[in-house]
């Protein structure tokens, strides 16, 4: 969906017609669900957070700056919703549930089952380490590595200056490296 179409839909939503919100919800629910899943670790809480974030975003559309893209602004609301849920008693990061939902990208069939097993072990280690490093480090790594956002988008979502993103990423990566080392993983 192009930015001009988004702006037009938002203008119509602001006029009070919530039917024009549906294309926006459908366009952003998949990446939104992945972000919420990465932050909360289980599908039920992630769907709750996603739904509440869409409702809050609709209610805040009057304050939305039409010169900005909708995506990062919505993801900022969603991220805050996930953090609120984590702080409340309603949700906590549940690695065991997340692990069941994880998939690896298709492995090279020529490398055989040994490589597949190694990758499965690496996956378990990585998620164990991500759980240990805490919410702040985990969220920026998920935004960068699993969601593939650029620094500018991450800055908008986390509501921090763009110059701070590199610093936050460095601390998160260093924390992850230390957590992996504590768990016995060796990196070159």
């Amino acid at each position, binding site marked *: 969906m192009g930015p001009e179409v988004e702006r037009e839909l938002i203008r119509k939503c602001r006029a009070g017609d*919530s039917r024009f919100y549906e294309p926006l*919800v459908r366009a952003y629910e998949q990446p939104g669900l992945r972000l919420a899943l990465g932050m909360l670790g289980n599908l039920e809480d992630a769907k709750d957070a996603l739904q509440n974030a869409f409702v809050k975003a609709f209610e805040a559309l009057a304050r939305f700056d039409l010169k900005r893209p909708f995506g990062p602004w919505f993801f900022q609301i969603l991220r805050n919703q996930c953090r609120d849920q984590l702080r409340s008693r309603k949700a906590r990061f549940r690695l065991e549930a997340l692990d069941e*939902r994880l998939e690896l*990208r298709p492995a090279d069939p020529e490398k055989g089952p040994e490589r597949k097993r190694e990758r499965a072990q690496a996956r378990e280690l990585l998620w164990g380490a991500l759980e240990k490093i805490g919410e702040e480090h985990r969220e920026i790594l998920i935004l960068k590595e699993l969601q593939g956002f*650029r620094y500018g988008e991450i800055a908008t979502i986390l509501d921090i200056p763009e110059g701070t993103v*590199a610093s936050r990423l460095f601390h998160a990566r260093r924390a*992850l490296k230390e957590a992996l080392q504590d768990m016995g993983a060796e990196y070159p």
Partner: protein
Amino acid sequence: MSERVTHEELMRYLDGEVGPEERTRIESSVEDSTELRRELAVYKAMKDDLQTLKLSDGGHHGSVWNSVNRHLTRPMGWTLLIIGSLVWAAYGIFVFLTSQAFFLEKMATSAIVIGVLLLFASVIWERYREWLTDPYRDIQR
């Protein structure tokens, strides 16, 4: 860590967020420093491993649009229902009070209406008190 390359610059280089000039300068520093090369290799390996992970939503969930839409339209429905009910109630009271009915009839009708309202309020109050002390109220179904 080389004096010429900060941790932040290394991260931007790793993530492809540097311009051509900065890239050349960082690559030159990396070539000159074994420590920097090792550090970059560690973060590059971690980045590659993280990028092999993919978050899955299970692939079988429906859209959240229906539940979002319910949340958006329900408050409007309640607001209209309450406003309409209040207007009709006020009009009914006005018609009742200004009608030509006998005083006794008015008293009996008022007693029934007030009685129903009191019973309704007491049930609501009881439910509210139960909810306050319910140890399972934060448990989601």
